[in-house]
């Protein structure tokens, strides 16, 4: 089974264009032939692999990209050297050649942005869906493909297409830009930050009486060559990332990491004669920051994930004693909901106590320590924590002490536990604020209303519980 054409076109497109460009310029010879041979091998692998990772692994194992690029570079260089021999030394011609290449670069950068924006504007989600289904139907039953029964059950891809297209129409009614990214591309691809420094170089080269060596010297002295390497774009990217991390503050380590990366950029820029950071120093500095923060990020998420599991144990175990438990998720989905409810009642305390033991063993964090840990306060403060204060205190005070292996939830706790569920007191009433903060950030970057034109409105919590008041939380 071949790779999905949408995937293989994206992977091979650039190389295909490079071959075609050389062909259009009537280039030939040993390097061109080798380039074509390597490209043909890429196409062959795209036809024989069904898995993109396996394709990439084999391309990497055979060094095909390197071999292709090596021959392409040698081909272009041989052509340039040939031209140079014919012309001999001509200062004006060298300068012109350099400036023409820069003008061409500016044009290519602008054309590429226009092309991808146009492509995004004209993207037809229904056509993409149809193509995807056709590909899946053609390859049904093959290795890595969908089972043939999927199409038999749903009445061929035609029927599935109609169903899918109807869904897309519905979606577009509510979110007209659901499949369009032109505004995002326009904002994020700040091509001016690249083209402006190139145009400054062109302007330098066009100054009356300019010679090639003077042009080369001044660009070094003024740092125009460095400005052209895109560091302004790097800074924009760092600002965007920090904004996103602040809007979705999963942990303080992400914020600190992204803040330090931006600060390092500005420090190196300020120390530079040409106000542009040295790319090597910046790259090593950023990697050093990652090395410091990676373990901290891992530890944070590991601890958080463990107390989330523990609190879920208490939540689900206590809920299983409510009379309506067999009728609600997750038990309602089981083959025998009543038996599943009993299974939860009998086994969850044993599982909970093991998780509690492992948390203590690995991190020295006991049950009550969870609520004193920075991960817990952070999640409450930034609305990531899904439960209300009232319900959390109920779990700590009433459920934890009685969640003991081989014991049942005392009868007197069943009614208050059911009331929590039925009175809608369990959830954090401000849980939706996480998405709202991200929505506000998105709109601040891409324009007011953009988020809702693409994505669903964050669902407001219907919880009747009071909002969290950290200062009154006695377990902190």
């Amino acid at each position: 089974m071949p790779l999905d054409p949408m995937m293989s076109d994206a992977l091979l497109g650039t190389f295909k264009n490079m071959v075609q460009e050389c062909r259009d310029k009537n280039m030939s010879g040993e390097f061109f032939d080798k380039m074509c041979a390597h490209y043909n091998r890429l196409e062959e692998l795209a036809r024989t692999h069904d898995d993109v990772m396996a394709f990439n692994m084999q391309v990497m194992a055979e060094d095909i990209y390197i071999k292709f690029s090596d021959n392409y570079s040698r081909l272009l260089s041989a052509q340039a050297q040939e031209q140079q021999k014919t012309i001999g030394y001509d200062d004006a011609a060298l300068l012109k050649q350099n400036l023409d290449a820069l003008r061409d670069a500016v044009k290519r950068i602008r054309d590429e942005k226009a092309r991808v924006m146009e492509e995004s504007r004209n993207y037809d989600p229904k056509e993409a869906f149809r193509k995807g289904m056709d590909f899946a139907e053609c390859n049904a039953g093959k290795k890595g493909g969908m089972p043939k029964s999927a199409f038999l059950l749903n009445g061929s891809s035609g029927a599935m297409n109609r169903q899918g297209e109807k869904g897309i129409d519905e979606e577009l009614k509510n979110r007209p830009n659901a499949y369009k990214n032109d505004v995002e591309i326009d904002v994020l691809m700040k091509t001016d930050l690249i083209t402006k420094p190139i145009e400054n170089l062109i302007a330098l080269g066009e100054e009356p009486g300019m010679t090639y060596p003077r042009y080369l010297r001044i660009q070094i002295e003024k740092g125009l060559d460095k400005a052209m390497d895109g560091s302004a774009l790097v800074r924009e990217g760092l600002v965007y990332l920090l904004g996103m991390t602040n809007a979705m503050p999963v942990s303080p380590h992400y914020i600190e990491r992204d803040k330090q990366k931006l600060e390092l950029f500005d420090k190196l820029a300020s120390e530079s004669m040409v106000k542009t950071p040295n790319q090597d120093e910046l790259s090593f500095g950023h990697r050093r920051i990652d090395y410091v923060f990676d373990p901290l990020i891992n530890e944070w998420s590991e601890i958080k994930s463990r107390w989330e599991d523990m609190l879920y144990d208490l939540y689900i175990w206590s809920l299983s004693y409510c009379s309506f438990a067999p009728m609600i998720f997750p038990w309602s989905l089981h083959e025998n909901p009543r038996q599943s409810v009993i299974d939860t009642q009998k086994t969850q305390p044993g599982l909970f106590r093991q998780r509690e033991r492992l948390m203590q063993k690995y991190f020295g964090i006991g049950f009550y320590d969870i609520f004193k840990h920075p991960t817990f306060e952070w999640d409450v403060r930034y609305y990531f924590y899904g439960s209300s204060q009232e319900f959390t205190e109920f779990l700590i005070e009433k459920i934890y002490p009685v969640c003991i292996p081989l014991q049942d939830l005392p009868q007197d706790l069943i009614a208050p536990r059911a009331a929590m569920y039925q009175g809608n007191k369990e959830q954090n009433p401000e849980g939706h604020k996480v998405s709202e903060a991200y929505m506000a950030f998105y709109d601040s970057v891409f324009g007011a209303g953009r988020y809702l034109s693409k994505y669903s409105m964050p669902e407001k919590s219907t919880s009747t519980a009071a909002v969290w008041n950290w200062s009154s939380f006695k377990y902190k």
Partner: protein
Amino acid sequence: MSDLLEEYKEYYRVRADRYAGNANYKNSFAAEKNLSEAMQGCSVLEDFRDRIGNLNELCAVALVKDKNIMENAFYKEFQEVVRAAVPERILEKADQFNEVFDLINMVNTEETRGMREISLDEANRIFHYCWMLLDRLEIYSEAVVPSGYESDMKKSAEYYADSIRETVRSMEEQMNLLDPAWRHNPDVITAYRHRRLLPYKDEHISEQLAKYKHITNR
């Protein structure tokens, strides 16, 4: 033509000066200085054609060396021995090259070889992912439950042991596309480059590793 000569002399001087005093670019400074001196000694521009020899190519070699010295020092600082080996090999070979395309090709080939070696080495971090499965296996094995549920708990524990074996098998299958001889080696996990990403004490890592090796037979 004489003005052009002076302007080229200035250009090559500035090219060398941009590396002056920067300890990270010692090789580049020396190579650029040699190139500049060749130019400064010309009385007519045409002389440069004879005097330049392979000095320009040596500037490329010098820059490759400087960058890889920095790269090597960085990875050594963090005990990243597999990553550090890539710049080491490039540095061993760089001086053999007089032709820029061959130099670039060597660097690209070594870097891609390095990417393969790094992928294979870091595939051993499958252990990090399996930690969670090992814990579940332990939780289900040790949980105190009514006797009627003990066999269910045992089945769940076996399910997690099978998941660990299947995860390792699938990773080996994937990595064998890069190197057919590759086999997961859990022992490398205790090396700093892998160990630093595990937020656990050494004694806990040893304990989990022993269980993991027993289950996976690796």
